[in-house]
């Protein structure tokens, strides 16, 4: 098993270890809820110990304030490791990766769909919550439905009685991303995750970086094959799309470096694969 799997499983269980919440049918509201986890993890889950950073940002948009704490916290993580929490910690990323292991036909997600995540970030996390005073990304988030909405509807008669059309729309999104995860690699992360979009902005200048060696690379495209985000590393090793899972470092042409390392020059322009 890959080392990052241990981190993914550990984070999934650690951030949602308040099992008493299922029995008591009440969410944990202790001091831990004041802290954000660096990943997508619904704070409404009965077993959640911590807050979701996107939920926190939306909360501040709803009350018409700027989320200094949440953005500063995410910015520092991004400046340190870029989008690495997506690749090594996120439970929803793990969920999608495990689904992709199921046997089926497989497809590649078109590159032009990748930019949609920025529209989700700006629209559903910042602008629409500001205007409508409702946290619309959280209302539609498939991760929230998976670990928050579904468990609540299952364990609580009171919550079941509150179910309206919006709940079925949420279920629709969850079903869509669950089904598409079987045939495509990390469809939610590639196209729609606003947290990944935010972290990705830091990839080009984060402390931890990938280094691609043009002399060693044979353009065999094994990197794209192994990459959970279908990246051809020779087209840009530090783009915002990379989730820093480091799986591609199995290739000797790709190594981990830091922004402080001497001789780490800006990457050359994208190259075409050899014929």
């Amino acid at each position, binding site marked *: 098993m890959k080392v990052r799997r241990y981190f993914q499983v550990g984070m999934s269980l650690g951030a949602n270890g308040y099992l008493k919440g299922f029995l008591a049918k009440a969410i944990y509201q202790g001091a831990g809820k004041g802290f954000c986890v660096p990943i997508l993890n619904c704070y*409404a889950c009965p077993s959640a110990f911590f807050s979701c950073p996107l939920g926190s940002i939306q909360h501040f948009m709803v009350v018409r304030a*700027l989320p*200094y704490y*949440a*953005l500063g916290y995410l910015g520092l993580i991004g400046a340190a490791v870029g989008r690495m929490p997506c690749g090594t910690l996120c439970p929803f990323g793990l969920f999608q990766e495990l689904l992709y292991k199921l046997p089926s036909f497989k497809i590649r997600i078109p590159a032009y769909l990748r930019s949609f995540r920025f529209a989700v970030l700006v629209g559903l996390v910042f602008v629409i919550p500001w205007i409508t005073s409702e946290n619309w990304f959280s209302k539609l988030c498939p991760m929230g439905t998976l670990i928050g909405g579904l468990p609540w509807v299952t364990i609580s008669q009171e919550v079941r009685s509150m179910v309206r059309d919006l709940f079925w729309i949420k279920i629709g999104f969850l079903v869509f991303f669950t089904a598409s995860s079987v045939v495509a690699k990390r469809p939610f992360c590639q196209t729609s995750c606003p947290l990944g979009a935010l972290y990705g902005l830091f990839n080009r200048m984060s402390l931890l970086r990938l280094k691609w060696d043009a002399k060693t690379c044979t353009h065999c495209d094994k990197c794209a094959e192994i990459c959970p985000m279908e990246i051809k590393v020779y087209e840009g090793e530090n783009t915002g799309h990379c989730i820093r899972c480091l799986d591609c470092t199995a290739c000797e042409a790709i190594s981990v470096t830091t922004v402080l390392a001497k001789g780490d020059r800006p990457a050359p322009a994208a190259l075409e694969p050899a014929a």
Partner: protein
Amino acid sequence: MEHWQELLDLVLDWTFVPLGLALLLAAVVGSGVWRGVRWRRAVWVLGVGLCAGTLYLGLQRHELGEVLFNGQLL
């Protein structure tokens, strides 16, 4: 219109400066608009400083505990 006035007031608040600069730096470098950054280490140190300043402001404003579930999910 009132909403945008509130946003403008917030943006004009001097405490927005580190957050605004951090977002601008992240957007300019991160989007790839500014490629081949020559002073990469200096940009990184500046970015960390701005994010740390933003986090410090958030902590000073007691934002840490203000992130509880507000029951809007259904």
